[in-house]
């Protein structure tokens, strides 16, 4: 991964994490603020409900008290005092009075609790009111909650009891108003809040018992979502709160506070549950806005990070990239590669150091080349002196013999002259040969490539030298061919390849004056055709191996030191390489590796041979 990309990721991560951290912190603070506000609103609503409850209760009590004071009720009590009250006379009385006084529930009970007239259950005349015992105790008391049993259902209401007496015979007036949707609709609710009422008719949750003033078509299915909260209050009897998710949209979430409503009496039965809902739409909206803002800021931050990283790249990574490119150029051989130095920061210092380093290296290399050139010239001079000294010495002796014969033995001069002339010609011919070889090395031709069968070439060389290997006057050398027939043709100059192998064979013959075995071997290794020439001679030391391909170096008495240099030159021109494996006393093996597919000779021009010993 590039430094620029790393820089971009680091910048982006920094921005995103920073924005996310800020957003989370804002969200937490917002949530806390909303929860506090929600708690305050709920408390205010409960207070308002209690106030409304008390107000309506007082209103109910006042109406019931006024009804109890009606003359007709007094007459009812008087009739009860005399005999018994005739329910037939009052069948519609409770209904008509209840409607007039806008009471949803109104019953007149005699002293035994039997219903004389009932608005909500007119057919119940003569039956005792089940709650009479507690009702009679609530005479003149403030209004209270009561779950009124109707024919096939029940209803929660605010009730009050007042009694009218004639003598010791009272008539109880029990009146009330329903806690229904109208009651709930009358509450002044803050925006986003609503109130539901659950009538606790049974121990288990029943959707029909939930009064929702704003309920729509899916009332029953919606009510089911409140079941866990309601059931919790039913079982614990305590106030509870919970989050209700009406849909997958967070804006539809609502926090509900379930407050138990209890009746009168010692047990204070749970008659209803007030459900105060607080919509989280505003909170969800704010949360969504914070999230959107965070995303927007994050996006902008990432965009900024890209710009910053580009700028930083311009300031930081571009010099580094130039430095890297310069280093690669140097590795590729361009010792003149330089990096532009701008500013005085660490990158500039690094670039300056790099430039100084390459300058030093170049100077060192030039010094090394100069040194090597001097050494080569010295070696060349030594070799030339050595080569030229050998034929010059006989020339000097011959000329001295001629001079001596002319002066001391003129009669012998003719004979000596003939002999000396032939010697002089021979030595001059030797000198010309030496000069010709040097000239030949300096004029190595460029290979003319064509498809050359490797094995055939190797066999040709072996056949050429067969006679010399078995020549009389020297110890016999056995020639062994180990040719892999998979090795086919390669792109090569047949003349030069033949000459290179021949030089190696000559070299091996020179290494085995006492005879031995010459092995010529071919094989394929990857994309390379391998030609090995091995002898069983005395071998070479590692130092010799290291210098064996140096021009004009030789370990032989009469070698020019150009044979292996020519071989290396040929192999190098074919895009291959040559190496030697040798062990003192166990012979040497020269390995030529040539590419099967053609490569540009120029590309392998600088490759050095490998030696291993």
């Amino acid at each position, binding site marked *: 991964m590039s430094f620029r990309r790393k820089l971009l990721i680091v910048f982006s991560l920094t921005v995103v994490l920073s924005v996310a951290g800020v957003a989370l912190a804002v969200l937490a603070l917002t949530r806390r603020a909303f929860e506090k506000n929600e708690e305050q609103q709920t408390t205010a609503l409960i207070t308002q409900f209690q106030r409304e409850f008390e107000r309506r209760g007082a209103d109910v009590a006042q109406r019931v008290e006024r009804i109890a004071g009606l003359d007709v009720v007094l007459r009812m009590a008087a009739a009860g005092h005399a005999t018994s009250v005739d*329910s*037939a006379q009052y*069948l519609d009385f409770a209904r008509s009075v209840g409607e007039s006084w806008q009471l949803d529930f109104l019953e007149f009970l005699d002293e035994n609790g039997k219903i004389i007239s009932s608005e909500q*259950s*007119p*057919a*119940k*005349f*003569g*039956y005792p009111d089940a709650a009479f015992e507690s009702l009679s105790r609530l005479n003149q008391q403030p209004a209270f909650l009561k779950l009124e049993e109707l*024919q*096939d259902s029940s209803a929660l209401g605010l009730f009050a009891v007042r009694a009218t007496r004639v003598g010791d015979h009272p008539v109880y007036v029990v009146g009330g108003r329903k806690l229904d949707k109208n009651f709930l609709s009358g509450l002044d609710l803050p925006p986003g809040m609503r109130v539901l009422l659950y009538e606790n008719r049974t121990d288990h949750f029943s959707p029909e018992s939930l009064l929702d003033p704003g309920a729509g078509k899916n009332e029953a299915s919606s009510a089911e979502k409140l079941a866990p909260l309601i059931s919790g209050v039913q079982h614990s009897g305590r106030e509870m709160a919970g989050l209700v998710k009406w849909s997958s949209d967070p804006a539809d979430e609502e926090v509900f506070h379930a407050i138990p409503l209890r009746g009168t009496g010692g047990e204070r039965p749970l008659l209803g549950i007030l459900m105060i809902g607080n919509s989280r739409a505003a909170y969800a909206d704010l949360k969504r806005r914070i999230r959107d803002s965070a995303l927007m800021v994050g996006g902008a931050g990432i965009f900024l990070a890209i710009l910053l990283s580009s700028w930083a790249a311009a300031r930081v990574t571009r010099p580094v990239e130039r430095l890297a490119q310069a280093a690669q150029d140097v590795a590729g051989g361009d010792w003149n590669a330089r990096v532009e130095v701008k500013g005085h920061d660490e990158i500039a210092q690094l670039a300056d150091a790099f430039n100084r380093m390459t300058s030093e290296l170049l100077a060192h290399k030039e010094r090394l080349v100069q040194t090597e050139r001097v050494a080569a010239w010295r070696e060349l001079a030594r070799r030339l002196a050595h080569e030229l000294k050998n034929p010059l010495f006989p020339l000097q002796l011959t000329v001295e013999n001629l001079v001596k014969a002319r002066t001391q033995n003129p009669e012998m001069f003719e004979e000596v002259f003939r002999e000396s002339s032939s010697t002089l010609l021979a030595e001059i011919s030797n000198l010309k040969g030496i000069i010709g070889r040097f000239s030949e090395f300096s004029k190595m031709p460029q290979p003319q490539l064509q498809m050359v069968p490797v094995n055939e070439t190797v066999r040709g060389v072996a056949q050429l030298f067969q006679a010399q290997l078995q020549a009389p006057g020297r110890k016999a050398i056995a020639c062994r061919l180990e040719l892999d027939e998979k090795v086919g043709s390669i792109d090569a100059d047949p003349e030069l390849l033949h000459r290179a192998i021949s030089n190696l064979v000559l070299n091996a013959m020179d290494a085995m004056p006492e005879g031995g075995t010459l092995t010529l071997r071919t094989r394929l290794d990857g994309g390379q055709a391998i030609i090995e020439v091995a002898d069983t001679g005395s071998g070479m030391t590692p130092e010799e191996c290291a210098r064996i391909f140096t021009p004009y170096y030789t370990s032989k008495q009469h070698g020019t030191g150009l044979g292996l240099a020519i071989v290396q030159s040929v192999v190098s021109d074919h895009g291959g390489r040559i190496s030697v494996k040798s062990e003192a006393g166990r012979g040497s093996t020269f390995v030529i590796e040539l590419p099967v597919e053609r490569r540009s000779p120029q590309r392998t021009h600088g490759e050095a041979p490998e030696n291993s010993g």
Partner: protein
Amino acid sequence: MKRSGWQWLAASSLLIGAIAAGGETRPRYGGTLRIEMSAAPASLDPAEGNVPDSFGRRNITALIFDTLVKFDDAARPEPVLADSWQAAGQELRLHLRRDVKFHDGSAMTPESVAASLRLENPAWKVTAEPESVSIQNDLAEDGLLAELALPRNAIVKRDSGKLNGTGPFRIVDWKAGERLSLAADENCWRGRPFLDAIEIEMGKSYRDQMTALQLGRADLVEIAAGQVRHTDQRSMASSKPIELIALWFAKGPSSPEENALRSTLSLSVDRTAIRDVLLQGTGETAGSILPNWMSGYGFVFSAKADLVRARQLRGQISPAPSWKIGYSPDDPLDRLLAERIALNARDAGLFLQTTSTPSADLRIAHLPLESGPWSSLGQIADQIGAPLAKEHGSLEELYAAERTVLASGRIIPLLQLPVSYAAFAGLQNWAVRPDATLNLENAWMESGAQ
């Protein structure tokens, strides 16, 4: 002198008062009587079988048409359009009254009477004879006379869809099921009625009728049983009980246990409390289908609640039944009855849920009894799906038939109600017959009453 002067003054005052009173009770011609009724018949033709028989329909029929005979309060046949009759075997010969004319002015002839009877009774063999008609069928004389006294056998002359009768009023305008205008027939064989016209509004609820009466928009209305107590008794008249309120089960009992549960329900109902309070004392508690005045044996069937016995019966059957008791959503009294019965049943350990939907196990049924004992019982038996073997018979046979119907377990009689009418104070000389039909033949209206 002083004493005699006072005596003369007192005597003169009494005489003037008596003369004045006598002037007010003297019948007078004129006036239009406005009636409102709950029934809304789609046809005025007595022979139209698709229109259910009711006292409302009978009221209308009696104003326009006459039958050949009728029965008095003592169930004795009286001549109407037939002035005499003789029975011989399966044949009854009725001598027709002379000089009777239909409302279109044509004379009533044996042929027109025979045509009317043939249309109404295709199975009868009716022969027109000079001044009489002869009827041959398999009914006995009493049975045939009872049939002839039924409104559906009223004599009608049908002329291209126009109906002509011989009754005191002729049809002026008729809007089916809504309004009927009648005018006095000047040539009525019984003499012109005192009233000039009658306007009848149909399909009105009891409450609307009472409101119309109180606001002076109607002169004569029907009143619901629960309103009887609150109505001025001086301007009110009731029939004998001719409507049965009963519990009607949709299906027969599926097992003896269920039959016992139905008996439990019958024993649990406090009919007296229902009559005294919900019906404001109107009607009679009933253990029988037919009222005692109609059958003479109604007292044999007990209508008393017996909660102890009911609980015993209930205790013998383990699975608690859950029935739905239905009531008409248009009738508040029905709902009260259903709720009261559910309360009574709960005392006996039965659970009844009230409902106004048609899918109920049992419902509050109002069964008319005005067609006479055999016909009324026959209609109920037909509804149960067990028609009576006979359409007429002796008292013992009637008793046995009623026992059979009750034994079906489909019906629990509760109350028998009369039909009551209320009229404005200026309507004079009107009456209600035992079968709840109005007798307006001699009714008249005081001057300045409208």
